[in-house]
């Protein structure tokens, strides 16, 4: 149960993108694949954050947090109408 996948929002430091990448989305994808072969991006965010959302196990999320260029890996939060 502890390794059940959850949605995370991954904040990237765009300025730290290695020069070998020309598209930040490719860099995001590469970072994600480094911790999970099966994970797919739900959204890529370009304006309000630099980063993406994806489904990861807690271990994968922890591992991703240690990768260079990752600012934070935050679990998804449910909001409610007021």
């Amino acid at each position, binding site marked *: 149960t502890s390794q059940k996948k959850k949605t995370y929002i991954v904040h990237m430091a765009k300025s730290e993108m290695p020069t070998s990448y020309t598209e930040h989305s490719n860099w995001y994808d590469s970072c994600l694949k480094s911790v999970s072969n099966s994970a797919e991006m739900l959204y890529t965010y370009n*304006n*309000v954050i630099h980063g993406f959302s994806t489904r990861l196990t807690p271990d994968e999320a922890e591992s991703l947090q240690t990768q260079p260029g990752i600012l934070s890996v935050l679990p998804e939060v449910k909001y409610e109408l007021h």
Partner: protein
Amino acid sequence: TTRTPEFLGIDKNEGLFPESDSLSDVVIGVLDTGAWPESKSFDDLGLGPVPSSWKGECEISKDFNSSSCNKKLIGARFFSKGYEATLGPIDESKESKSPRDDDGHGTHTSTTAAGSAVDGASLFGYALGTARGMATRARVAVYKVCWLGGCFSADILAGMDKAVDDGVNVLSLSLGGGVSDYYRDSVAIGAFTAMERGILVSCSAGNAGPGSDSLSNVAPWITTVGAGTLDRDFPAYVSLGNGKNFSSVSLYSGKPLPDSLQSFVYAGNASTASNGNLCMMGTLSPEKVAGKIVLCDRGINARVQKGAVVKDAGGAGMILANTAANGEELVADAHLLPATGVGQKTGDLIKSYIFSDPNPTATIIFAGTKVGIQPSPVVAAFSSRGPNSITPEILKPDLIAPGVNILAGWSGAVGPTGLAVDTRRVGFNIISGTSMSCPHVSGLAALLKAAHPDWSPAAIRSALMTTAYNTYKSGQNILDIATGKPSTPFDHGAGHVDPVSALDPGLIYDITADDYLDFLCALKYTPAQISSLAKRNFTCDTKKYSVTDLNYPSFAVPLVTEQSGGDSGSSVVRYTRTLTNVGTPGTYKVSLSSSASESVKISVEPDSLSFSKVNEKLSYTVTFTTSSMPSGTNAFGRLEWSDGKHVVGSPIAISWS
């Protein structure tokens, strides 16, 4: 909405507000449950072409086609990947995988902000009038991020990301989550970028009142809106067998109760369940309630569901009694059976009668719509309250606006109660919440944006706050319905919005994106946390940052009570503010009032500011000299600058913990 334009004074002051060209260039983005495009409130009659800068789209799906959008509803998108990733594929037999609003909430909020005028709008004849949004000529773009199972942050961020890119000018979010640091809160994160791009973000304060520390959406770059009442009511009268009569409220429309008194029973005595008094599903004994009026206690399940439970059990009617959690606040509902809501005190009196009479009887008489109710506004009991639990030095909510019994557009997919068993369909519905007050401010912000296109989001908020009122014409402070006593800045912020005054505030407290970065430094955020919000590298300087230096239009002064045996001397706290002249040259003089002059001394230096030109900036310092007070003590005050024509007011809240 009906009545709120009159209540806010924007119906008789149309000439003061911007002409069509500037206002129709303003786009309000609403993140919510989507829109019902067939609503008359989305009629685009008289609107010109969509602004050329607009990059948004009308996303097509099987129940939402290109003609669903027009020159009023200029954008409609939906974001469900986060929702579906967590809860599985959307069941399209229950909700539309499209921007279409199956809930009603999104149609209500978006039409409140910017709906076109619709004559003869009402809910079953209640609240009859011309329904219009606050900014009738502004455009609307909806971003559906909320679904039957809730609103997920991955979708909210995606909606904000797109809205910013599309080119909205105002963002309206009537939703909230738990309290968390700004760098963890998706709404705060998205709002930061929006603010940087000149977009005002208006959010609901939450419905977790009247308890303190109950606010959502408290980031200082967000405009946080609490809720107050209108001067309108929907009275119903409860008559008891002992001859006593009580006032209540209801939106019931249908076959009335018989003229004669009916048998009357307390739900708690008509159930074998320990919580039978709440009229939860399946808890009432039909043989004990059949043909009777049932008294249910408010709480746990939806108010309208209690009515449905009574109806299912064969009850003839329902009286819904508030408990201590709601006090005397009366929220009207379009119940499925003759039903009405009463305050706690009335509920207690009615219960006394039921328990003392072996054969209690009652009836309910419905009396339609009444306007001119005084005092109004009063702060709604449900409206979330300060202090701000994330940054106590920033006073929240910022202000209050109408949020109780608001009529606005509704979805054709659901009845006015939202219950599955409610097969009625209405074009307009009457509901309550800070969800309803938020889009009022969003629409009013659009009016200000059109009138002052060069104003920053902080300037617009400042104008709304410093011109808000916190007293009635009698001079008495706005009341809090939860207590029946005067409300405080922790309840109403700067006060109730006054859009006509906000058009010409005289002075404003402006805040730039860099100022907010300094604020984050003062919070001792790490570079990564700041970068998450600002999306760029920013290194805090070695200089001393202070949260209290943020040029906010209000003052919150949190103090720590000294422990016994410690130094019992007074403490001195200084706040610096800068005012920008947006009016004519003039000299402003300061005045102060405080509820606790013995424990707090407040001084302002200088006490006079002379502005010789537009956009001139002048600073002042407020010094709070306070004595130690017991933990939990609060003191309140108000600081006003006036040139004789304008009054630029700021609330003060001092708290000891």
